[in-house]
């Protein structure tokens, strides 16, 4: 009792996201990008049924979904035309997450019915990816070659991650998951959504946000480039001229 309470307090003090019977905490709620940033792993801790009265002896499954800021993408398909490989066909993916990590303690397909999982967007294949189809928008079947290619390319870039052993139970109701943030991670607010399943049905859900931001010098450079483009351009040009001038003086031989 006292140990559970202590853990509860610890988690509650860290960065609490209170959901019905689900307590979540991130090892860091802000990933700061400095000049030596090359990717980082953020650990998510969670306690199911922290409320003692609600705790039961059921076995839980956990699916953690992390989505980076939305962006629109185009997937192109090449074909051979006159001996050259040319982009011939394309599909637009609207408001797709720029980063997507789906971590679970086992294959989500084993946790509940396909219908339930699809509805909850639990599992890598169940995340909606809106495609522009003519003038309409819809998510197509999972086997669509453009959809598969999109996921394949994103996974190869390390921006889409699927790990069916990414959630580890350290006690019957306490779990831990490491969220891999790659060096190329897009800047912005990431939504961390945790869903737990028991007896083939959704039992709890909780959400947190994770911030990926540049700080110090990187922040200054990026915000100047955005906010004062003329100043940034002129200063960069003058800097280039200064380097050229110094080099000319340093290596002058006549």
């Amino acid at each position: 009792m006292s140990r559970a309470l202590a853990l509860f307090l610890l988690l509650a003090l860290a960065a609490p996201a209170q959901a019905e019977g689900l307590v979540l905490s991130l090892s860091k709620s802000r990933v700061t990008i400095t000049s030596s940033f090359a990717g980082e792993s953020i650990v998510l801790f969670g306690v199911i049924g922290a409320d003692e009265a609600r705790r039961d002896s059921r076995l839980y499954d956990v699916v953690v979904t992390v989505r980076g800021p939305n962006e629109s993408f185009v997937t192109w398909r090449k074909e051979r035309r006159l001996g050259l490989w040319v982009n011939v066909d394309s599909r637009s993916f609207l408001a797709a997450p720029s980063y997507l990590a789906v971590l679970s303690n086992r294959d989500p397909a084993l946790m509940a019915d396909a219908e339930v999982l699809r509805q909850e967007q639990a599992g890598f294949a169940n995340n909606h990816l809106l495609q522009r189809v003519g003038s309409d928008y819809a998510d197509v079947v999972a086997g669509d070659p453009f959809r598969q290619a999109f996921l394949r390319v994103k996974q190869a870039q390390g921006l889409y991650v699927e790990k069916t052993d990414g959630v580890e139970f350290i006690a019957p109701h306490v779990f831990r998951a490491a969220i891999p943030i790659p060096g190329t991670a897009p800047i912005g607010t990431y939504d961390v959504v945790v869903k737990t399943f028991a007896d083939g049905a959704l039992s709890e859900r909780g959400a947190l946000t994770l911030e990926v931001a540049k700080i110090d010098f990187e922040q200054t450079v990026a915000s100047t480039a955005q906010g004062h483009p003329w100043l940034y351009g002129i200063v960069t040009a003058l800097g280039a001229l200064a380097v050229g001038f110094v080099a000319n003086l340093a290596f002058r031989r006549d």
Partner: protein
Amino acid sequence: MTIYLPIAELPVNIFTLLAMGIAVGFISGMFGVGGGFLMTPLLIFLGVPPAVAVASVSTHMAASSFSGTLTYMRRKLVDVQLGLVLLTGGLTGTLAGVVTFMVLRRFGQLDLVIAITYIVLLGTIGTLMVVESLRALLREWRGEKASVKRPGAHPWFLRMPFKMRFRQSRIYVSAIPVVTIGFAIGFLGALMGIGGGFLLVPALIYLLRVPTLTSVATSLMLTLVTMVAAIVMHAVLNQTVDAVLGLVLMVGGTIGTQFGTRAGQSMKAENLRLLLGLLVLAVGIRVAVDQTTRPADLYAVTIDERAR
């Protein structure tokens, strides 16, 4: 040791970048070209987004061309008047190139057009240079004297109206071909992410009959002005200039250029032209092979610029 590039938004190894800067700087010092046609593809290969690569290489080229221009200025080899006339066409061409770049990217055919332009342009220029320098070497081997061509009769395009006298270059030609050459260089530069030195120098020598050293010096001045304009244009329109990336490339590039220049001075002009010709040809063939072999993945994903 990695360094995070704030605009490209990715970490890269700083020593890889420095080595690339030194290598490309060496080549550009040796042959008197900007090296953009090598640096831009290398950066894209590292994972830098093409738009950021093209824009950031311009800072590197501005630095090295300023250094070179200063040296030639002191030796009074720059034809400022010729440079200014070339620039009127060059800046218009740059603008036309930027617009074409945007239109092609919208239709997803930018890569193809760039590839075809590279194949045709580098293939042609490379072949011409190799053939010309081999001929010169062969003549020398046979012990023949090179015929110094300085024909009295100008080709038709130099006899067009609006004739101008360029004292430094000792030519009296129509302004129309000069502006046209400037336009073509500016257009291709903006489209392909190259400074165009390796195109402009032969164009000035063979088409306008400008002396070799004046051609190189004036071409550097033109590169300097167009690259400074490109930095500001890219910074304002696209926000794709990565100052950190540019700085690392500049430092490597300026060091490499010094060694390249010394290596170049100890070689014969024909051998130098042959080597540059082979290099240009090799890049062209590489692009052609890439474009004609089946890619590992037939699909590619790009960020949709229209939705932004």
